[in-house]
């Protein structure tokens, strides 16, 4: 079975000059969400609905899926700060006015899963709605989890997304954004039976992507953690092992009949730049073995400026361009999440 990207969506605040102040006027919900119905949604939820709807190819006013189709459709979203702003506000309100000062309508915004849940409600996704919350890497982890769930048959289609809004008034955490990819299971050439991994979830994936234009293929994903040793250095064994696992993904990308070698794209916050360079070098070294290579192994580390959405924004850009790539999201705590993106060009999708 192949996992294809059949839609993408993104909304992102452009970085502004320092001292320009926080500004949420960059996003106008009306074109994305209509004039009504979103007043009590947190910014993170609004962004996710906008990006998610774009990836799915639906209008906000479209009816939600129902019945069997909705039971084969899932949502996975990554976020780091979805509740940070509202929690600060509620905490201060509790201490000054008491609980009566909190509006019941805004209480759902105090749950990390609410952006994904609102997308599941509006699109009618009943296979599952999962939220992952690791800082920085959660966006690519959403893709990893979604692709795995497609392979185990939990769904035929999954929106893998991320959304973040760093708490207003805190400088330097990152900019607002959401991004989403629609992943579709393609069983048209599923001669292999390696996907029968025990899930009790039924449902045929065949034919579900009929007529869908595939932008790219997700050929694999890896998640690793590199601890710091007592001497304060990144554990070299863990770093090398993680890099080898990531490099091994390149073989899958090349296997998807791509003639060009995949790009290596590493995304990390500025505070994790040094570690990201070490990761890039380690993956490059691991790739210097016969049969696997990437272009631009010395490419600069991309600065992750949109919190947990950053890695997914890179993935969306690459999927649109049709380039095959290894996208690696790196957090300052030592977490690596990599997604392998293959060229999906195949006659049946033209």
């Amino acid at each position, binding site marked *: 079975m192949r996992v294809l990207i059949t839609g993408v969506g993104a909304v992102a605040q452009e970085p502004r000059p320092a001292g320009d102040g926080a500004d949420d006027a960059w996003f106008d919900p009306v074109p994305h969400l209509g004039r009504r119905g979103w007043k009590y949604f947190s910014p993170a939820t609004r962004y996710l609905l906008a990006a998610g709807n774009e990836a799915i190819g639906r209008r906000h006013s479209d009816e939600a899926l129902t019945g069997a189709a909705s039971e084969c459709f899932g949502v996975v979203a990554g976020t780091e700060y979805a509740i940070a702003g509202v929690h600060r506000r509620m905490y201060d309100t509790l201490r000054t006015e008491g609980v009566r000062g909190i509006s019941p309508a805004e209480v759902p915004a105090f749950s990390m899963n609410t952006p*994904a849940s609102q997308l599941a409600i509006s699109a009618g996704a009943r296979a599952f709605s*999962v939220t*992952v*919350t690791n800082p920085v890497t959660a966006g690519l982890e959403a893709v990893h*989890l979604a692709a795995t769930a497609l392979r185990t048959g939990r769904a035929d289609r999954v929106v893998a997304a991320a959304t973040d809004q760093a708490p207003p008034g805190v400088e330097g955490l990152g900019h607002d954004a959401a991004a989403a990819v629609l992943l579709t299971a393609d069983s048209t050439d599923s001669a292999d039976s390696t996907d029968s*991994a025990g899930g009790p*979830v039924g449902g045929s994936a065949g034919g579900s992507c009929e007529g869908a234009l595939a932008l790219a293929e997700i050929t694999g994903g890896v998640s690793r953690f590199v601890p710091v040793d007592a001497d304060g250095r990144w554990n070299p064994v863990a770093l090398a092992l993680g890099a080898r696992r990531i490099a091994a993904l390149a073989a899958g990308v090349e296997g998807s009949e791509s003639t060009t070698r995949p790009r290596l794209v590493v995304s990390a916050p500025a505070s994790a730049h040094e570690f990201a360079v070490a990761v890039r070098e380690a993956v490059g070294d691991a790739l210097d073995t016969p049969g696997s290579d990437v272009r631009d192994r010395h490419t600069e580390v991309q600065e992750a400026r949109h919190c947990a959405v950053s890695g997914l924004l890179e993935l969306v850009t690459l999927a649109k361009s049709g380039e095959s790539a290894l996208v690696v999201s790196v957090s300052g705590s030592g977490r690596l999440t990599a997604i392998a993106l293959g060229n999906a060009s195949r006659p049946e999708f033209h």
Partner: protein
Amino acid sequence: MTVVVTGMGSVSCFGSGTTALWDGLLRADQLPVPAPDDCGLSFRPNFYAGPETRSPDDPSGSAPQDATHGVSSHAPGGRTSALIAAAVAEAVGEAGLTHEQLADAGLSVGTSLGDIDLAEPADSATAAAASAGSGPRGSDSAAGQAGEDERGLATHHVASVIAARFGIGGPNHTLSTACSAGAYAVSWGAELIETGQADLVLVCGGDAFSRVAVGTLERFELVDSEHCRPFDTARAGMVTGEGAVAMVLESAESARRRGATAHAELAAHAWSCDAHHPMAPEPTGEQLRRSVADVLADVPEAPGAVVLHRAGVAGNDTVEADAVGEALSVLIAPAEVVGSAPKAVMGHTAGAAGVFGCAIAALILRHGLVPPNAHVENVDPDCPLAVPVGNPVPLARPSVLVSGTGFGGNNAVLLWRAAE
């Protein structure tokens, strides 16, 4: 591929250790204590308090020294991280994992609010000090500078803190599907093993006391001001609880290779989403019923017991029991299956609850006993399952269903059976 449990650890209002957990469940008399704060309410709410914890970084902490192998955390974390670290240390010890095995193991954490105490200090000065604790290398973003602005930005670093503390180098994930986060964390950990992405995964859940959580729950009148009594007709809501629980999951082949004892086997697991309302369950419970039916699809016989999510919120309790009962009725009269609601004695531990459900299922299978339900004067007449009170009852058939539900209609169901 079969996934088995080879180690467990727990900290809860019963104290530290799975022995204390099991003893507390059998005693069935635990009551909550007054919360440290009125949480902005007109009354002082109760909660089921976890034990005192040391910093997960503290070498004199509850983790055995040999479990750390000199690996030190560079982000200190908050109370939830400390609770989880204690539970993971016990689970790692019971499973007998080596440093080398941990270096390639996965970590799947379920938590609702993470280290929320870092964002809810007793006073603002403490807040700044708490969030300034992580050094520059420990910061995932721009934390590390002191000040009110930085308050509580590191609440979701739990998986980093735990992985760094124990040198867990494999797949690293945090799932936050509200109150079913723990059930999803266990299921996802199993899926990593079933799909060949890891041989061994630490699955754990934890949550600590949060003023804002209690306050906002009461805004919807979801808090019982006395104690949690999910099977009593007078139930008036949930009562929050603190705790953390960890399980070592591994492939049966890996356990055999290591000579480790399997305590229970995962027979099946399924997910669904109501896609109905951000907080309330869909009234017919159709999606939860579908998940229960999915895990029961190929079983040779009905489970002997169900560890319910049941938290004392009458409407939600009824939707869950009806959905589970309806799916069971294909195999057996639901009254032949024992229902268990552990939240009566340990409160709603949020992101830990689903992992506690699975650990309790494994303990029920190990002991062949189902603990009695606590704080029941008049049994809810609408529950289709058997509701034992007073004394534990024998487990009639060697499999146990665990149901996890949460805000957003996030359902996860797991079926455990006795290890072969």
